[in-house]
C-alpha cells in the first residue's frame, strides 16, 4: 500500500493545490517586491507592480532569474530577510565561476526537510527503517537535506557522509541499513565493491535507495537495483530552490512528483522564454512559494525535461517531471540524439577515469562523427596494451549505454585538453550547419 508523509497535501485535489498556489504566490510577490530591491528593479523594468499579479495565471508576466542574476547579486543581493532571521547557508559551485550561496530561515529548513521526508516515505521508508545518508555533508545540500528528511520520518539515521567505502559497507551490513541515500554513481560503486566482496543481493539488508544530484540512465538504475537487491528512486533538487526533494519518485518509478504546494514549475522555450504547453520538452523554471530567506521567482534551472499531469497510480496529484537530461546550454544534438556533457562525465567517473575530456563533433559525408578525448590517469594506465584497450572498450560500452549512440574514445596525455582562461574547453563542434 502506498504511504505518504503529508497525504492531505501530496494527494490534494488540483483545485486545492491551485488555491494554495494563488494565495502563496501573491504573498511571495509582495514579499520580494518589498524586501529584494534587485528583483523589484527587474519588475519595474517591465512596468510591473505586485497588483499586476492576481493569480498563477499571471506568473508568466514576471521577469526570470538566472545564474547570471545570482552572480550579479552575490552574495546578499537576493536575500529577503534580515540576517538575524537566517540560520544557515548551503552552497554549490557555479558553472559561471561564482559560487551559489543560498540562505535559509528555520522555516525554510523545515519545509526542505519535509520535502525530503516525502521522498523517503514514497520510497517505502518508515520510522522502523535504518537510513544511511552517504551524500556529502557540509555546504553540499545532499547530506543535510536527506539527513533532515530521515529525522522527520523517524528513521534511525546514519550520517555516513561520502567516502570511505569500507566503512560505508561496514555500517550497511552491521547496522542492517535498509535505505541508502547517495549519488547514483556512488551507489553503483558501492554495489560493485560489495559484489567483489562476495556479498549477494540477498545478504545485503538494503531495500530502497534514493539517488540524485547527477544524471543517470534507466540502465544504470537496473544495474544498481540488481547488485544491491533494492528499488532505486530518483530525487531532484537544486540549491537555488532549496536542495534535494523539490521533486521525487513514487512507487511507479515513472517521473518525479514536484512538491507543488511549495514550488510552481513551468516549462519554457529556452530561446524565447515563452511558456510551453504541458507535455512539451523545454527548460524547467521554478518559483519558490514558501522560501523566506532566498525566495527566487521564475528561476531558470537550465534543466531540460517535460511535465505531465497524467494521473499517477500512487495517488499523488502533483505534476510529474521527467528525469532532466542535463543543462540546456550544454546540450548537443549528435546524430539526432540529445547528448549532455554531464552524462559523459558520469560514465567517466564510474569507470575510473577523471572527468577530464573533450568532445569533438564533426560532420563527414552527412553523418556526425562523435569523438571523445579522455585523459589517461595513473590509475587507468598499465604496461599492457591489451589491458588498456579492454578498459577503453568498457568505457565505450558504458558511454553507448548512457547516451544511446556510439562514441570513439581516444586516450590522451594528462592536462593536454585545451583550456581557455583556466577552464577546460569541453566541446568542439566543427559542424557547419
Amino acid at each position, binding site marked *: 500500500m502506498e504511504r505518504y508523509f503529508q497525504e492531505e497535501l501530496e494527494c490534494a485535489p488540483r483545485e486545492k493545490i491551485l488555491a494554495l498556489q494563488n494565495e502563496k504566490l501573491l504573498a511571495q510577490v509582495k514579499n520580494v517586491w518589498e524586501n529584494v530591491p534587485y528583483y523589484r528593479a527587474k519588475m519595474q523594468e517591465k512596468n510591473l507592480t505586485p497588483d499586476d499579479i492576481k493569480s498563477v495565471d499571471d506568473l508568466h508576466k514576471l521577469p526570470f532569474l538566472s545564474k547570471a542574476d545570482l552572480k550579479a547579486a552575490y552574495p546578499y543581493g537576493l536575500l529577503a530577510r534580515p540576517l538575524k532571521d537566517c540560520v544557515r547557508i548551503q552552497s554549490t559551485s557555479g558553472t559561471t565561476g561564482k559560487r551559489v550561496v543560498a540562505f535559509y530561515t528555520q522555516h525554510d529548513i523545515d519545509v526542505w526537510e519535509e520535502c525530503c521526508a516525502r521522498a523517503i516515505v514514497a520510497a517505502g521508508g518508515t520510522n522502523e527503517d535504518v537510513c544511511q545518508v552517504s551524500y556529502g555533508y557540509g555546504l553540499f545540500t545532499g547530506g543535510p537535506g536527506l539527513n533532515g528528511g530521515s529525522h522527520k520520518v523517524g528513521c534511525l539515521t546514519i550520517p555516513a557522509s561520502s567516502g570511505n567505502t569500507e566503512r560505508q559497507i561496514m555500517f550497511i551490513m552491521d547496522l542492517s541499513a535498509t535505505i541508502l541515500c547517495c549519488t547514483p554513481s556512488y551507489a553503483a560503486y558501492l554495489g560493485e565493491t560489495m559484489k567483489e566482496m562476495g556479498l549477494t543481493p540477498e545478504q545485503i539488508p538494503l531495500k530502497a535507495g534514493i539517488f540524485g544530484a547527477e544524471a543517470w540512465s534507466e540502465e544504470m538504475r537496473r544495474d544498481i537495483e540488481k547488485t544491491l537487491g533494492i528499488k532505486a528512486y530518483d530525487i531532484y533538487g537544486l540549491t537555488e530552490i532549496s536542495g534535494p526533494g523539490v521533486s521525487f519518485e513514487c512507487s511507479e518509478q515513472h517521473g518525479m512528483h514536484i512538491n507543488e504546494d511549495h514550488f510552481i514549475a513551468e516549462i519554457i522555450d529556452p530561446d524565447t522564454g515563452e511558456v510551453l504547453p504541458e507535455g512539451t520538452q523545454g527548460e524547467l523554471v521554478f518559483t519558490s512559494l514558501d522560501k523566506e530567506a532566498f525566495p527566487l521567482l521564475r528561476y531558470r534551472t537550465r534543466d531540460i525535461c517535460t511535465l505531465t499531469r497524467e494521473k499517477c497510480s500512487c495517488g499523488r496529484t502533483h505534476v510529474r517531471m521527467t528525469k532532466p537530461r542535463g543543462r540546456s546550454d550544454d546540450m548537443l544534438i549528435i546524430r539526432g540524439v540529445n547528448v549532455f556533457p554531464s552524462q559523459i562525465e558520469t560514465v567517466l567517473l564510474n569507470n575510473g577515469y577523471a572527468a577530464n575530456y573533450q568532445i569533438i563533433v564533426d560532420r563527414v559525408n552527412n553523418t556526425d562523427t562523435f569523438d571523445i578525448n579522455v585523459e589517461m590517469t595513473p590509475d587507468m594506465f598499465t604496461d599492457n596494451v591489451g589491458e*588498456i584497450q579492454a578498459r577503453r572498450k568498457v568505457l565505450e560500452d558504458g558511454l553507448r549505454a548512457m547516451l544511446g549512440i556510439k562514441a570513439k574514445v581516444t586516450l590522451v596525455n594528462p592536462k593536454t585538453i585545451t583550456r581557455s582562461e583556466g577552464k577546460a574547453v569541453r566541446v568542439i563542434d566543427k559542424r557547419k550547419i
Partner: protein
Amino acid sequence: MSVNQVSVFLENKPGTLNKMTQALAKGGVNIRALSLADTNDFGIVRMIVNDVYEATSVLKEENFVATFTPVLIYAVSDETGSLDKILRAFTESEVNIEYMYAFAGKKNAYMIFRVTDTKKAEALLNGKGLKSLTQEEIAEV
C-alpha cells in the same frame, strides 16, 4: 633481482615521443634501452634508465603518465645458441613471455624480458645457473 622498467603512456600525436626524450635529457636521465609498443592511436614506451626515480618525476612534471614494471635482464654472449639457452629455460619453467627487447652493452648484448610471473621465472632460471642483472649491474655494463 628484477629491474624496474619505466613504462610511459604516449598519445598518438606527432612529437610526443620527442617531447618525452627531451624531458628526460633535461632531467639528466640516460636511456639504456627503449622499446615502443604501438597501436593505431596510442603507444607505450618501455625504457631501462639509469635513474628510475628521476625519470618518473621529470616525466610527471611534463604531464606524462608513467609507471614501474618489473622486468628480468639477462646477458646474452656473442656465441651460437646463447639466446636459445635462455628462451629454453623460460619454456621449461612454463612462464609466458609477454614481450622482450634487447640492448647492447660494452661487452655483451642484453635481453629484457617481461613475464607473467617474474618471481617464479627468476627463481627457476636461477636454478639453471642463469642470473638476472640487478639495477646496479645494469649501470656498469
